[in-house]
C-alpha cells in the first residue's frame, strides 16, 4: 500500500459524502460532454442522451467499481450492519440480556482462571531483565534434580560457564513472633544480580556474605514489613530471632519484589549465616551437605541450547568420579522470569482444569447458538425476502455475524465483572476453608489486569462470538427463497436438526463434567475416610532447633498436659519422606522410605507391632543397628519368611548391616493421595538428637498447641519451627482435593444449569413450532398424556444420546486419571449413576413446563390460524 493510497482511503473514509459527490460530478461531466458531442454530430436531444449513456456503459456499476477501488466498502457495510443490528436489539432487550448474561458466565469463569494463570505463569517477576534469569541443576538417572554443596557452587562460580552472574540460594523457614516466615538464604550478590533496591534501609550487599558466620543481618519483604510489623518506620536496626538466633533488620526490599521462587518470601539473609540458622552439618564444613540452588543470568547473546550443551558437559565432568547413582545424567535449565515456569509438564497438570472451564464456555455458547437459531428461524421470512431481492448470502452471513460480535461486547464487559467477583469470592472461600495452620503460609500475589489479560478477553470474546454465531448464520441463510417468502418456514427442518445436535452436545458435556466431578468428590471422600494406619487425635508435632532441644524437652516433660513425648526424623503426613536403598542378603535391592523414631512413637500413634518387639530405650540411645520393618517392607524383602531376626544391608552413611527386631503395621507416612507406604523401615533414635518431637496431650488439642507454642517461644525464642496438630497435617494434605472438589462442584452445577436452560429453550421452541400439529392432534382426540408424552419423548431421546456419549467420554477420562492416583483405581459406579440420573432428571424437569404448555393448546384457537 503506497502513501497516496493510504491518504486517499482515509479521505474516502472520513469525507464519504464529499468523495461520493465528486464521483457523481465526474461521471456527470463525462456524460454531458458525450451528450454535446452527439448533439453536434446531428442527433436529436433524446438520441444524444441515449447514445452518451450507451457509450458509457452502466453508470451504477461503474460507480460501484470506483467505490471498490477505494477499498472502504467493508467499513461502510459494517456500519450499516451495526446500525441494523442495534435497531433490532433495541426492539428485543430481553434477548440481548439473556445472551450477554449466558456468555458472560462462561467468559467470566475463563477470564478468572486466566487472570490467575497470568499472575503465576505469564507475568514476569518484577526484577531487572527477568527473561535472562535461569535456574540450573543437574539430574541423576532417575531424573531427580541435584542440590549443590558450597564447594560445588564455588567451583561453578569459578568455572564461569554460560552465565554472566550466578547466585546460590537456600530456603529457610522460621517463625517470628508466632508468624510463619519463609525466607531465602542468598549469596551477597543476589540483590545486585536481580537489580532489586530497597524501600527502606539497604539491600543485602556482597560484604554481608563475605565469610561464613557473617553478617547477622536480614532484609524483610515489603509485604512482611507491612503485615507483620505494621509498616513501622523504626524497623531498621531491630533484632529478630530467626531460629533462635538474633538477626538485625538492615532493610526492606522494594515494594512488589517477593523473590523469584514459586511462593513469595518474607525475608532474605546471607547464606554465610547458614550454619548459625540451621541444624545438621555445616554448609561450609567437611561433610559438604548439598542444599543450595543455583540461579544465574545467561550471558548476553548466549543461546539457551548452547548454554545447555556447555552445562551438560560441565556437570558430567564434575560428577565423573562419583558412583553411578550420583553421576549427572542430564541438566535442567529453567527460566526464572515468572513465578512458575511455563513447561510442558505444567501444561499437562493444568489441562484438566482448562478443559473443564472451556467446556463451560462452550456450553454457554451452544445455549446462545440455540437461541440465535430460534431467532433466525423466526426471521426466516425477512431473510427470504432479502435473498429474493438479490442480497448476497455472504452479505447476510456477515450481517448476522456482526450481530453476534455486537452481542458479545456487553457479554465481555459483564464477563469481566464476573471474573473479578469470582476471583475475590474464591479467594475468600479459600481463606475460609483452608486448614487453619496453613493460613499463615498463604500469600496473596498481585493479580493485575495487564495487556495479556485484556488480549485473552478479546480473543475469548471473539472466539465465542464466532462459536455461537457462525452456525446460526449459515443455517438461517440457507433458506429456500420461495417457501420462506410464503411463510412456510416449518417445512425446512434443518435448523431443528442443528438445534437437536446442540442439545446432544450440551448433554454430553454436562454428563462428562458431572461424572468427572462425581469421581473427584468420591475420591476425596475415600481419602477422608481412608484408614491411614495411625491415630492423629491429640498429637502435636513440632520441629525443634538443635541448640534449644534440651530446654524444650525439659519443658515438655514437666508440662501437666503432655502425656508422652516421642521423637521422629520425619513428621508423618508432612508431605515429605526420605528414602534409602536396602538389600537383604539374597534378595533384590529395594528403595524404601525410612523414619528414625523413638520407642514411644508406636504407642503415641497407635501403630501395632505385628511381630517381634519395639525398640528398647537402650537401643534408641545407642542407635544400635536394629530396625523395625513395615509389613510392606517385610513382604518385599523377606517374602514368605519371618522377617524378625533377619539381617539386611543398608547402603547409607555409614553403610551397615541391620538386624530386624520387629514388624509394624503399614501406615501413610508421606501423603494421603499416595496411599500407605509400600515399604518403610524404622531405625532407632532418641528425642535428644531428633529434629521432630511428637507429644500426646490431654485436653483440647488446639488450646494446648497454642499454649505450648507461646510458652516455648518465651523459653527459647525461635527454637520451635513448625508446630501443628497431626489433625491439621492431615487436613492440609487433603486440602488440594477438597478445593478441587469444590471447583468441580461449582463447574458441574453451572453446567447443569446451562444445560437445563438449553433443553428448556429447545423444547419451548419445539412446542411453538408444532402448535398447529399439536392442535390437530388434540382436535382428533389426543389426550393430555399423549401430548405431554410427545414433548417429553423428544427431550428424552436427545438426552439419552447425550448421556451415552458423555458416559463414554467420562470412562475414558477417568481411566486416564486413574493411572496417576491410588484412590481412583478401579471402576466406581456411584459417580456415573449419580451423574446420569441427575442429567436425566433435569432433562425431564426442563421438558415439563413446555410439555404442559403443549397440553394446554386449544385446538380451536390454533386451527383458526389458517
Amino acid at each position: 500500500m503506497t502513501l497516496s493510497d493510504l491518504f486517499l482511503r482515509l479521505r474516502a473514509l472520513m469525507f464519504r459524502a464529499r468523495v461520493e459527490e465528486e464521483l457523481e460530478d465526474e461521471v456527470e461531466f463525462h456524460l454531458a460532454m458525450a451528450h454535446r458531442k452527439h448533439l453536434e454530430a446531428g442527433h436529436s436531444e433524446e438520441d444524444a442522451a441515449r447514445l452518451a449513456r450507451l457509450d458509457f456503459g452502466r453508470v451504477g456499476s461503474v460507480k460501484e467499481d470506483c467505490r471498490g477501488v477505494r477499498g472502504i466498502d467493508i467499513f461502510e457495510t459494517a456500519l450499516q450492519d451495526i446500525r441494523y443490528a442495534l435497531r433490532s436489539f433495541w426492539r428485543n432487550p430481553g434477548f440481548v440480556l439473556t445472551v450477554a448474561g449466558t456468555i458472560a458466565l462462561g467468559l467470566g469463569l475463563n477470564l478468572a482462571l486466566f487472570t490467575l494463570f497470568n499472575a503465576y505463569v505469564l507475568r514476569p517477576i518484577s526484577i531487572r531483565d527477568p527473561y535472562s534469569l535461569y535456574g540450573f541443576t543437574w539430574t541423576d538417572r532417575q531424573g531427580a534434580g541435584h542440590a549443590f554443596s558450597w564447594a560445588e557452587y564455588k567451583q561453578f562460580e569459578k568455572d564461569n560457564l554460560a552465565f554472566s552472574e550466578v547466585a546460590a540460594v537456600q530456603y529457610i523457614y522460621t517463625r517470628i513472633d508466632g508468624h510463619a516466615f519463609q525466607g531465602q538464604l542468598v549469596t551477597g550478590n543476589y540483590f545486585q544480580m536481580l537489580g532489586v533496591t530497597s524501600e527502606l534501609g539497604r539491600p543485602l550487599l556482597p560484604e554481608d556474605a563475605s565469610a561464613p558466620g557473617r553478617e547477622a543481618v536480614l532484609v524483610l519483604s515489603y509485604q512482611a514489613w507491612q503485615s507483620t510489623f505494621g509498616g513501622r518506620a523504626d524497623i531498621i536496626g531491630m533484632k529478630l530471632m530467626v531460629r533462635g538466633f538474633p538477626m538485625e533488620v538492615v532493610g526492606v526490599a522494594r515494594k512488589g519484589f517477593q523473590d523469584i521462587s514459586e511462593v513469595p518470601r518474607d525475608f532474605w539473609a546471607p547464606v554465610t549465616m547458614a550454619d548459625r540458622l540451621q541444624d545438621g552439618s555445616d554448609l561450609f564444613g567437611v561433610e559438604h551437605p548439598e542444599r543450595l540452588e543455583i540461579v544465574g543470568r545467561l550471558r548476553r547473546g548466549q543461546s539457551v541450547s548452547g548454554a545447555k550443551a556447555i552445562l551438560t558437559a560441565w556437570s558430567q565432568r564434575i560428577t565423573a568420579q562419583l558412583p553411578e547413582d550420583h553421576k549427572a545424567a542430564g541438566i535442567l535449565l529453567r527460566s526464572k522470569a515468572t513465578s512458575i515456569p511455563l513447561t510442558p509438564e505444567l501444561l499437562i497438570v493444568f489441562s484438566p482444569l482448562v478443559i473443564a472451564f472451556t467446556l463451560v464456555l462452550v456450553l454457554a455458547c451452544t445455549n446462545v447458538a440455540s437461541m440465535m437459531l430460534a431467532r433466525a428461524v423466526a426471521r426466516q421470512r425477512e431473510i427470504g425476502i432479502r435473498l429474493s431481492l438479490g442480497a448476497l448470502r455472504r452479505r447476510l452471513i456477515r450481517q448476522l455475524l456482526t450481530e453476534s460480535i455486537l452481542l458479545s461486547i456487553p457479554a465481555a464487559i459483564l464477563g469481566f465483572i464476573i471474573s473479578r467477583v469470582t476471583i475475590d469470592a474464591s479467594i475468600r472461600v479459600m481463606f475460609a476453608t483452608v486448614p487453619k495452620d496453613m493460613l499463615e503460609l498463604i500469600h496473596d500475589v498481585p493479580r493485575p489486569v495487564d495487556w495479556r489479560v485484556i488480549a485473552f478477553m478479546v480473543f475469548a470474546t471473539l472466539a465465542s462470538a464466532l462459536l455461537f454465531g457462525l452456525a446460526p448464520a449459515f443455517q438461517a441463510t440457507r433458506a429456500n427463497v420461495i417457501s420462506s417468502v410464503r411463510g412456510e418456514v416449518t417445512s425446512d427442518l434443518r435448523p431443528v436438526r442443528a438445534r437437536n445436535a446442540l442439545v446432544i452436545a450440551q448433554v454430553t458435556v454436562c454428563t462428562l463434567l458431572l461424572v468427572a466431578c462425581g469421581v473427584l468428590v468420591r475420591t476425596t471422600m475415600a481419602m477422608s475416610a481412608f484408614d491411614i494406619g495411625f491415630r492423629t487425635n491429640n498429637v502435636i508435632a513440632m520441629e525443634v532447633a538443635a541448640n534449644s532441644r534440651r530446654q524444650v524437652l525439659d519443658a515438655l516433660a514437666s508440662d501437666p498436659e503432655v502425656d508422652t513425648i516421642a521423637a521422629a526424623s520425619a513428621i508423618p503426613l508432612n508431605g515429605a519422606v526420605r528414602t534409602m536403598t536396602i538389600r537383604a542378603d539374597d534378595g533384590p535391592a529395594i528403595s524404601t522410605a525410612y523414619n528414625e523414631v523413638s520407642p514411644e512413637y508406636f504407642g503415641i500413634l497407635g501403630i501395632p507391632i505385628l511381630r517381634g518387639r519395639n525398640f528398647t530405650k537402650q537401643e534408641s540411645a545407642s542407635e544400635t543397628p536394629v530396625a523395625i520393618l513395615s509389613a510392606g517392607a517385610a513382604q518385599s524383602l523377606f517374602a514368605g519368611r519371618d522377617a524378625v531376626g533377619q539381617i539386611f544391608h543398608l547402603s547409607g552413611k555409614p553403610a551397615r548391616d541391620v538386624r530386624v527386631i520387629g514388624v509394624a503395621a503399614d501406615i501413610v507416612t508421606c501423603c494421603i493421595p499416595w496411599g500407605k507406604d509400600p515399604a518403610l523401615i524404622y531405625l532407632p533414635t532418641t528425642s535428644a538428637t531428633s529434629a521432630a518431637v511428637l507429644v500426646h496431650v490431654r485436653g483440647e488439642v488446639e488450646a494446648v498447641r497454642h499454649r505450648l507454642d507461646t510458652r516455648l517461644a518465651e523459653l527459647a525464642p525461635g527454637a520451635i519451627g513448625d508446630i501443628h496438630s497431626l489433625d491439621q497435617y492431615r487436613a492440609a494434605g487433603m486440602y488440594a482435593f477438597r478445593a478441587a472438589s469444590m471447583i468441580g462442584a461449582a463447574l458441574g452445577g453451572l453446567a447443569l444449569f446451562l444445560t437445563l436452560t438449553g433443553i428448556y429453550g429447545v423444547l419451548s421452541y419445539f412446542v411453538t413450532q408444532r402448535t398447529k400439529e399439536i392442535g390437530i392432534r388434540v382436535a382428533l382426540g389426543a389426550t393430555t398424556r399423549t401430548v405431554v408424552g410427545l414433548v417429553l419423548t423428544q427431550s428424552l431421546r436427545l438426552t439419552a444420546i447425550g448421556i451415552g456419549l458423555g458416559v463414554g467420554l467420562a470412562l475414558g477420562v477417568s481411566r486416564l486419571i486413574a493411572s496417576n492416583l491410588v484412590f481412583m483405581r478401579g471402576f466406581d459406579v456411584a459417580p456415573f449413576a449419580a451423574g446420569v440420573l441427575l442429567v436425566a432428571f433435569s432433562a425431564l424437569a426442563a421438558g415439563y413446563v413446555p410439555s404442559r404448555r403443549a397440553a394446554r393448546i386449544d385446538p380451536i384457537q390454533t386451527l383458526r390460524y389458517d
Partner: protein
Amino acid sequence: MRKPSRLDLLQGTLDLLILRTLQSADAMHGWAISERIRQVSENVLQANQGSLYPALHRLEHQGWIKAEWGISELGRRARFYRLTAPGRKQLQQEADDWTRVAGAIGKVLELA
C-alpha cells in the same frame, strides 16, 4: 474482495494507454482521455467508456497519476489528471514490457 470482471482483463492495457495518453499532455479530464484514446486507436478502443473511471481511480490510488479539480475548456468544473514522477517510471517499464511481448508474439506469429 471484488469479483473479477471484463475490466480487470483489460486493466493492464487500459492502464498503459491512460499513462501514455497523459504523458503527452499536461493535465486531462476523463472525457478528454477517452476521446484521445478513441482518436489515436482509430475507433478501435471506444466501447464502455465508463470503465475508464475505475482505472483512473486505481492509478490514482497507486500514486502514478494525480487528480485535481479545475475548469474545463467549456467553463465546467472537471477533474483533471496528470502524470506523477513514479507514474512516468511505471509507464516506461510497462511500455518496455509491452514492446517486448508484442515483438515476441509477432515473431511467433511470423514463424507459425
